[in-house]
């Protein structure tokens, strides 16, 4: 009884562990369940123009650049700027590209390209909440501002409603608002008012991501904080929240461009969207992660290709186990069909089946001749192996002569396995007749084709390679099938006449007798 218990325990554990590993891959590494899933990558190019102040003098330019943030992951960035040295730094949480040269004269152009993955799983990295600080104004301005705040406060309950009310007042025909907006931008005014009302806020420079746009400039928005979270307020229409296609470019109250040795700097942006397979995008994203990454992506490409094949084997094995235990198909050699199916993966189905049938039938003819020579078994099998190689070489050369390059692919067949198959089939032929050869040979071929169909499915290839946990689930399924004690499908057919007979004659067990002669 104990072993039964541990059997179910092991199956449950394998199943749970496998499922957990798969979920971990899906959640932590965002590996999608389906291979067709695509991800959106934005390629943004910033062009900075300025004029050097003097002939052949050093110039240093610091340009704010975006970092991974809520909704976006920065995959790669490349500055390009002939004659400039570039390095990246971090200043007050703001990423910056520092361009420097010893000698510059006349108009200058610098470039900065960044690839950004649109990534719902990306989180903000260390957002510094701005401190409540505002400049002292003259009395009139101060009282105008205070009047606006008081008015808005009176009509609001919390931060969100306060912001809405403030925006309403500013965009209305209010006297104070008009006065204040005369020489201040709306975003700056709203920020100032929010700070005075005790709500942390700052002006940020954002890029609206729109496909195939050129010569765009950054727009300003108000970032205000409600507790730990922040919202972006668009000063043009008063909407706030977390707009989807808005990339925070400069968001730490630092200058966008800080230039020494030049003037009239301005940046323009162009951008393009592309869709790439999720795996490509994510392998870039997780190329240097600290998470426990037990993934085959880390291996060199050649080894990856090998594992791609190896990890499919359990799927083929599962198919064989199912077909043998539940369906009851007869095959020649338990796992020979899986190996044949692996060869089909390389040759493709039609070429594979035709090639296999050709090799086996020519091999059988040769084997029948060999059986007359009265050889020892090992020597005979070895001769069959050599004969099979000969057949493969012959078929390959012949088909190539006819310009059919598919013929080359039959070299993928496992020759030793084929030789054993030929040997076994010829014995089967001699012992039990041609019928059994076709039954078992056909059964093997059917199982091989079904295993091939399972293994060649893109979804299954994707799942086996990317979710190693699936292997544990397959193991659990195989263990479960190992305890299947129900009838096989073929037995339902085999015992059908008996059941019919018994049910036609009444009581089971005491019927169907030969009427005794006496």
């Amino acid at each position: 009884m104990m072993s039964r218990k541990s059997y179910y325990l092991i199956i449950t554990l394998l199943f749970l562990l496998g499922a957990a590993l798969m979920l971990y891959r899906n959640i932590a590494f965002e590996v999608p369940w389906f291979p067709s899933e695509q991800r959106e990558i934005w390629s943004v190019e910033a062009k900075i123009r300025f004029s050097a102040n003097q002939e052949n003098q050093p110039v240093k330019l610091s340009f704010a650049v975006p970092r991974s943030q809520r909704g976006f992951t920065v995959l790669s960035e490349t500055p390009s700027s002939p004659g400039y040295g570039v390095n990246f730094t971090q200043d007050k949480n703001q990423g910056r590209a520092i361009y420097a040269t010893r000698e510059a004269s006349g108009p200058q152009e610098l470039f900065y390209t960044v690839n950004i993955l649109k990534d719902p799983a990306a989180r903000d990295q260390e957002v510094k909440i701005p401190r409540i600080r505002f400049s002292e104004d003259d009395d009139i301005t101060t009282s105008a501002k205070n009047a606006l705040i008081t008015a808005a406060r009176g009509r609001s309950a919390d931060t969100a409603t306060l912001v809405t009310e403030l925006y309403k007042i500013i965009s209305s025909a209010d006297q104070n608002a008009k006065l204040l907006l005369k020489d201040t931008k709306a975003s700056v005014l709203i920020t100032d008012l929010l700070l005075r009302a005790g709500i942390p806020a700052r002006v940020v420079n954002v890029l609206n991501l729109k496909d195939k746009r050129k010569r765009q400039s950054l727009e300003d928005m108000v970032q205000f904080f409600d507790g730990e979270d922040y919202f972006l307020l668009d000063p043009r229409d008063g909407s706030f929240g977390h707009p989807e296609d808005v990339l925070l470019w400069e968001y730490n109250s630092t200058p966008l461009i800080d230039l020494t040795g030049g003037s009239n700097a301005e940046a323009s942006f162009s951008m393009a969207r592309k869709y790439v397979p999720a795996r490509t995008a994510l392998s870039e994203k997780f190329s240097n992660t600290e998470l426990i990454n037990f993934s085959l992506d880390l291996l060199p490409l050649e080894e990856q290709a090998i594992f791609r094949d190896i990890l499919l084997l359990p799927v083929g094995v599962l198919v064989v186990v199912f077909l043998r235990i539940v369906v009851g198909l007869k095959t020649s050699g338990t796992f020979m069909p899986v190996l044949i199916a692996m060869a089909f993966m390389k040759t493709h189905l039609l070429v594979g089946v035709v090639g296999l049938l050709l090799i086996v039938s020519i091999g059988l003819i040769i084997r029948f001749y060999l059986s007359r020579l009265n050889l020892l078994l090992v020597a005979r099998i070895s001769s069959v192996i050599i004969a099979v190689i000969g057949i493969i070489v012959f078929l390959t050369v012949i088909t190539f002569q006819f310009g059919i390059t598919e013929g080359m692919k039959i070299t993928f067949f496992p020759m030793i396995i084929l030789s054993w198959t030929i040997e076994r089939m010829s014995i089967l032929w001699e012992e039990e007749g041609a019928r059994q050869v076709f039954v078992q040979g056909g059964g093997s071929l059917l199982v091989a084709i079904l295993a091939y169909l399972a293994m060649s499915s893109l979804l299954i290839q994707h799942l086996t390679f990317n979710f190693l946990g699936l292997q544990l689930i397959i193991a659990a399924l195989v263990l479960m099938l190992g305890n299947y004690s129900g009838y096989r499908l073929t037995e339902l057919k085999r015992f059908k006449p008996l059941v019919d007979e018994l049910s036609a004659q009444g009581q089971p067990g005491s019927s169907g007798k030969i009427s005794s002669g006496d």
Partner: protein
Amino acid sequence: MFGFLKNYTSPFKLAKIGIMGMNVRNCRYISPYNPRELYPLVDDKLQTKRIAMKYGVTVPVLIGCIRHQHEVGGFTSLIGDRTEFCIKPAQGSGGKGILVVAGRSGDHFLKPNRQKITVHDIERHISNILAGLFSLGGKLDKVLIEELIHFDNVFDGYSFEGVPDSRVIVFRGFPVMSMMRLSTARSDGKANLHQGAVGVGLCLNTGRAVRAVQFNTPVYVHPDTGSDLSKLQVPHWERVLTLASSCYEMSGLGYIGTDIVLDRDKGPMLLELNARPGLAIQIANAAGLLPRLRQIEKLLKDDPRMTVEERVAYSRKHFGVYQE
């Protein structure tokens, strides 16, 4: 669209009759009752013979054994001037690799169907056996040369070539079902039902034929000889069952098929044991094995010690079909 389904029966009907399937046989009976380490005793006929002799179970007389390729040449001196003998692989399965020589004609040997074969042919056959052609997994094998069995005259006309043998399934020492396998022209003289041999279900009480099937369909006369199969009755039935039942103590295996032949002179003889007996016996008997196996399991829960005679008596009483 589902027309093909009419060729299949419902698993519930099968379960109701108590038909044993391959999976339940492997999972519930062979695996728990047949300890793996005892398999060599039955898979190797030489070992079976050895323990059978130790337990006083009658077996065909061994003329000689060939273990190595270099001994193949000594085959002729081994058989001497015997005209009939039987060559078997020690680890063959399903009757594979058995060569029966029934006579001599000059330098040639004769198969039971009078087909001539040369010494060369026989030596090649022996080489094939040694190289593992007929053994499971192609393992190197040994060759047994045995005296030919002269089967009892009562079976005259019931078999085409080949020896008609009785298969008795023995579960934990209790005979639970039996049949006789009659070779036919279709089965090429072999006793395997799937090759076309006739399976005759036998009443466990009397050894009388219950019914007969060939390829899953009932037959009433032997297809080659036309003999009335309903008249078939195995003589010395009690001895056959006793022999089968005592194989349990001898082999230690809980679920076995015992193949027993009746020699004209020596009576019932154990031909071989099978640790994985097939399911066709149920078709031959038109009865399921499972109810009987469950009955034995239930019985042994209360009273674990029974002698061979008591077990045979129990089986005859409970699993028989006819009184006389």
